[in-house]
């Protein structure tokens, strides 16, 4: 095994920010993805019966936050000091909270579409408008500090989902959309986005 192996479902979920960090840092990793039918077996092998798990030279690290914050620190994408790191965690946390309300596992397409639109109107748009306001006032190139952080990667990935499922809200977020476009065109990120499996979730 190389230095890093990530084990997760074949979907974005709690692993996508991790994969984006490796891509942005241009660090190689084994992107082990399994299907739902394999989960009962794999679950028993995981240290806390959960995924994602990151193997670092064979030693497992669990909990998505622990994984992506560790990698972000190693790759210089966790701010310049502890206060910036705290704001990065805050923005990522808010984005995670609001986007986790999207009914990813809903099987009825009509219900899924309706609920997704509702979640965007009631939760996602209000949060993003606040972030847009602060971001445009700051006149910065990145959400926190003056370099790429995992909060920017999360923002980009979230807005890509919104492009597909609720694009009507995007005209209210011009600066965040500009940031999304800068990040999606970064070397490393661009190639990963072009090659990643399309998610059905």
């Amino acid at each position, binding site marked *: 095994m190389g230095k890093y192996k990530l084990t997760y479902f074949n979907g974005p979920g709690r692993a996508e920010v991790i994969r984006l960090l490796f891509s942005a840092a241009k660090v190689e990793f084994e992107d082990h993805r399994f299907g739902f039918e394999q989960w009962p077996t794999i679950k028993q092998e995981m240290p806390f019966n959960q995924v994602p798990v990151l193997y670092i030279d064979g030693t497992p690290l669990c909990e998505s936050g622990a994984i992506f914050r560790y990698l972000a620190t190693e790759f210089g994408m966790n701010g310049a000091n502890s206060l910036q790191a705290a704001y990065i*965690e805050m923005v990522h946390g808010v984005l995670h909270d609001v986007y986790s309300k999207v009914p990813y596992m809903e099987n009825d397409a009509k219900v899924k579409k309706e609920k997704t639109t509702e979640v965007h109107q009631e939760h996602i748009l209000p949060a993003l408008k606040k972030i847009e306001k602060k971001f445009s006032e700051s006149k910065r190139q990145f959400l926190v500090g003056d370099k790429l952080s995992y909060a920017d990667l999360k923002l980009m990935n979230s807005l890509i989902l919104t492009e597909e499922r609720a694009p009507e809200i995007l005209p209210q977020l011009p600066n965040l959309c500009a940031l999304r476009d800068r990040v999606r065109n970064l070397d490393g990120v661009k190639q990963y986005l072009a090659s990643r499996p399309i998610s059905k979730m």
Partner: protein
Amino acid sequence: MPSYKLSYFDAYGRGEMARLLFAAAKVEYEDERFSFEEWKASYKQTTPFGYCPVLYIDGAPLCESGAIMRYLAVEFGFNGANSLQGAYIEMISGALSDMFSKLPFFEKDEKLKEEKSRAAYKDHILPLLVKMEKKFTERKCDFLIGDKTSYADIQLMQCFIIAQRYDASLLTPFPNLVALKERVAEIDGLKQYLAERNQCPF
């Protein structure tokens, strides 16, 4: 040192880890607490995203309980000696949060609450503690990670206080973790805070 104010419900919930860190570090802060009615009527609108807790650092708001907890842990030296230790500390903290969050804090029906609590311990919490006790015993160290108190040790203490309040006999299979909890509860600063703090249902 900046001036600190923590703003949260009069409850443990997502605010207590910050209070415990201030206590263990013996750092002064304003411990602002409000009721649910006060939250809805006025406090909510003053927060960055309509959530609490909020930590005001020289008046500037920081929200998201994880961000607050990890910021204070780093500032006060409770985040391990390096980034890999920090990762393992977050891993344990996350695992404890995941399992203890399955407790039915808001269940109003007493009978249902008891059933759900039993199930949460049996299906989620105790299996985690079995794994943790095993690893911790093998490690032969006084702390969960590294060689000094981290916020994972403090969080374990708080979780065990909750568990012991429910049914102390559930923790008999975990003597080394219980001993760790007892040691952490004796830390100067924490000890006084634990003796004085409001007893909250959750």
